[in-house]
């Protein structure tokens, strides 16, 4: 759900950048502390960033027939914890703009807000909630990934609605319009990504327990 370069007017582009900046800065500060205690996590973070970038370039089969790309938001939030995501997400989004011309620099703030802040926190919150209330890992991962995507898509729709309010219905009408249009592609996509993330987590818990443990330097959530 990238907003393309130049789509948002200047005031909105600046406002979303200002909204995202403190969260990204706090996230960077937390990552800095981890890196200072344990310098080798730099490699782990870089590896994870590159993993997220390459994963997001894969085509995912979707129900509507059209292929789209997994966001990896839910998987990242569950594996690395939500506080690593804003800064790593911002890096990945910047690379997508510079290497794929996908997304943009003026819209980076808005995209970081929807994909690296709202999405991961919703994912992680749901994951914790379901795990602590005794739900299975599969259910938690599915809902975390699917609703992380949904939250991202709702945020993007709202961002577009605020920038282009409906002449009659205002922001609400406009939000309904964008939600309605994107629902066609995004709802099946969110479900597909949820299922994909379950498949990935199942394999990881079965064969990569060691790697998951090594992630505990970043977050305790990876303990399955």
């Amino acid at each position, binding site marked *: 759900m990238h907003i393309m370069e130049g789509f948002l007017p200047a005031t909105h582009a600046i406002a979303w950048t200002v909204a995202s900046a403190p969260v990204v800065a706090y996230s960077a500060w937390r990552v800095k502390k981890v890196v200072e205690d344990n310098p080798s996590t730099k490699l782990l*973070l870089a590896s994870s960033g590159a993993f997220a970038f390459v994963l997001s370039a894969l085509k995912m089969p979707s129900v509507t027939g059209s292929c789209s790309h*997994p966001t990896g938001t839910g998987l990242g939030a569950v594996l690395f914890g939500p506080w690593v995501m804003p800064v790593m997400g911002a890096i990945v989004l910047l690379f997508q703009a510079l290497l794929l011309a996908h997304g943009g620099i003026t819209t980076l703030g808005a995209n970081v807000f929807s994909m690296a802040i709202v999405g991961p926190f919703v994912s992680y919150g749901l994951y914790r909630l379901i795990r602590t209330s005794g739900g299975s890992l599969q259910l938690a991962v599915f809902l975390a990934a699917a609703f992380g995507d949904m939250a991202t898509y709702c945020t993007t729709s709202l961002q577009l609605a605020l920038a282009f309010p409906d002449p009659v219905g205002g922001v609400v009408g406009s939000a309904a319009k964008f939600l309605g249009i994107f629902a066609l592609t995004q709802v099946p996509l969110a479900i597909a990504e949820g299922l994909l993330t379950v*498949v990935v987590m199942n394999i990881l818990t079965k064969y990569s327990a060691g790697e998951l443990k090594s992630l505990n330097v970043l977050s305790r959530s990876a303990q399955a």
Partner: protein
Amino acid sequence: MNLIDRIAHTNRWSRRATAEKLLVCLGGLAVCLAGPALTTGPLVLLANILLALFAARLPAKVFFAVLGFPIGFLLAGAPMLLVSVDFSHGVALGWRPDQFPVAVGLIARAAGAASCLTLLALTTPVHAMIPSLRKIGVPAFLIEIMLLTYRLIFVFAETVARGYNAQTARLGYVGWKRSLHSLGLLAAAFFQRAMSRAQHMEVGLAARGFEGDFHVLAEDGVAASGARCALIVAGLSLILVLGFVAERCVHV
């Protein structure tokens, strides 16, 4: 991705000072957003096309293909602004031709802005841009992580492409359910690779006395020429002024 990166390394502007290219492209973005959308956007688009084809000598096919993707998206999306939704008396859909200028302005601005990003992506290698983030206050450890990420992206992309081909050759992507399963296998196997790659680098660096900082030689970048920067600023200002003047003419 490989194509964009390859062209970024091999065009006529590859060896130009990064600061100059950033000034052209980020300045262009600022002009697009600051000036009147309807006229400034197309002017920036035109300037960038001329720069791309005649100054940087980018292959026209690639430049328009990379630029065409977001613009196609834009042409499909912008007309949505002409439809209105109102909830005051139930749900009412309406056709609003008076929103036409808003939609056209959006297309004009976003097309201009997208051309700036396309020009930047195709003329400037990413590793040349990352160090300049240091100047806007991005901490050194993040720059290191970014440079490592950039390097690993290409290593991983190759691994994944091979895995994907191997799966496709074994009919792994026949049917929806099977595709999902194959993709999950690929992502999980790839995750293991990524983690073990990080561990190998860790061990390798530890063996060489890694203390937490990477000391790398900066590439001898060409210094930005003051005269050229002044010329760029003048050009950008000219576009901005022309944009405002043209907008007046359109309205009169």
